[in-house]
């Protein structure tokens, strides 16, 4: 009997794991001893960090997608279907089209979704660049924008923790280049008591905000948005109000509905922080945004976790035991405008220490935007 490995989700984590398994287990797959399947509702894989650049017309739509079948090693079976439910007792993933996909090992890599619907009025009055449709809509609005108050407002939890800062710095440069910075009031709000979750990044960002005349407010959590003719007001959970002419919101995120339907609260799977196995399920790994771990929901987290999950699955299948622990490693580039960037790395025990922004790091980030496909293929 072959060992069936099912990977739910073909995003960054799912693609890396599938491709690493295909390489690490190629003999077993050739001999029919191991079968690897990836299930995803999308036929194309999107490079999500490109959305930030789409807003400013610096990334073309056709450069940010690859066909899932081209991205995955040919020995992997790709199932184009939406997952309806996970049956952890029967070791089966049920799909919307009625398939029951059985597994010996399951990897849950279904990611997270921005849920503007969780804040009253946000869908109607806010702009969200975490989807391609939203990024394009915002791009059009910015083209026509002639002045007024722009508010970047961040909700929790959300993926890509540095994107709100990046878009704020880029907006500052965009309006300056357009010659209307003096007609734009740029505001930024953040849920906790500093301007970024990482204290070192917050300490660096505040003087940058002040230098660029970006107003900021902390301990501000969107509760409700009201608006008329494009302008409006945000009401916060803390009892404050902020008016806007353009609201760029980073909405709260949740895991996939299939997990919520399977009894997992908010779609965040309780996960062992070192082994990356779902609590209570020895044959289920969890990777990327969908874990409940208190670490960044980011592509780099998914990447470093995926290396561990793939290595452990290969070791389990070949030798009967997992091989190593995840140490909480995350590394993020932070664009500080259109011509400089910094980066942070940290893990469960080492706090981040950002380096001064430089052109070199910005070029590295631009380079990585192009070589990302090697990461998704499990090469880089």
């Amino acid at each position: 009997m072959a060992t069936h490995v099912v990977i739910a989700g073909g995003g960054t984590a799912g693609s890396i794991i599938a491709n690493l398994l295909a390489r690490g287990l190629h003999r077993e797959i050739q001999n029919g001893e191991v079968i690897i399947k990836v299930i995803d509702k999308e036929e194309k894989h999107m490079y999500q960090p490109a959305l930030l650049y789409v807003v400013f017309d610096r990334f073309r739509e056709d450069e940010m997608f690859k066909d899932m079948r081209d991205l995955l090693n040919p020995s992997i079976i790709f199932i184009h279907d939406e997952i309806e439910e996970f049956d952890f007792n029967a070791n089966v993933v049920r799909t919307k089209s009625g398939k029951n996909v059985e597994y010996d090992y399951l990897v849950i890599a279904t990611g997270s979704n921005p849920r503007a619907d969780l804040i009253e009025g946000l869908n109607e009055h806010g702009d969200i660049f975490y989807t391609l449709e939203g990024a394009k809509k915002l791009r059009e609005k910015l083209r026509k924008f002639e002045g007024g108050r722009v508010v970047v407002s961040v909700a929790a939890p959300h993926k890509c923790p540095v994107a709100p800062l990046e878009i704020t710095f880029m907006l500052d440069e965009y309006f300056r280049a357009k010659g209307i910075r003096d007609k734009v009031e740029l505001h930024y709000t953040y849920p906790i008591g500093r301007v970024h979750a990482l204290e070192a990044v917050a300490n660096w960002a505040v003087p940058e905000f002040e230098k660029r005349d970006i107003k900021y407010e902390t301990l501000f959590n969107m509760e409700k948005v009201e608006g008329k003719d494009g302008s409006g007001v945000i009401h916060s959970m803390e009892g404050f109000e902020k008016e806007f002419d353009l609201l760029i919101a980073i909405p709260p995120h949740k895991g996939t509905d299939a997990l919520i339907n399977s009894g997992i609260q908010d779609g965040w799977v309780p996960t062992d922080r070192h082994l990356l196995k779902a609590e209570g399920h020895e044959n289920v790994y969890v990777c990327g945004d969908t874990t409940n771990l208190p670490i960044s929901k980011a592509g780099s987290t998914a990447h470093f976790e995926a290396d561990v999950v793939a290595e452990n699955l290969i070791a389990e299948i070949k030798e009967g035991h997992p091989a190593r622990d995840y140490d909480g490693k995350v590394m993020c580039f932070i664009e500080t405008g259109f011509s400089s960037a910094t980066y942070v790395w940290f893990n469960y025990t080492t706090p981040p220490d950002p380096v001064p922004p430089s052109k070199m790091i910005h070029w590295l980030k631009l380079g990585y935007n192009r070589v990302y496909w090697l990461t998704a293929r499990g090469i880089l």
Partner: protein
Amino acid sequence: MSENVVVVDARGSFCPGPLMELISKIKSVPVGTEIHVLSTDKGSAKDIPAWIKKVGHEYLGTEEKEGYWVIKVKKTK
């Protein structure tokens, strides 16, 4: 520990951090739920009570354990 206590284990979290973990969790639990945030970050012992006070939930106290803090909060609205 009573049944309606939810534990948020944010130990070793630099990003998004204990307060952000609490804000995320508090939205999805029923009113009356007690949430215990476990944190290795000393700053959270100050940040979390400050936010709780601002929003109007109930701060139940902080316990110092070996190498971490337990910050207790009750959702009241």
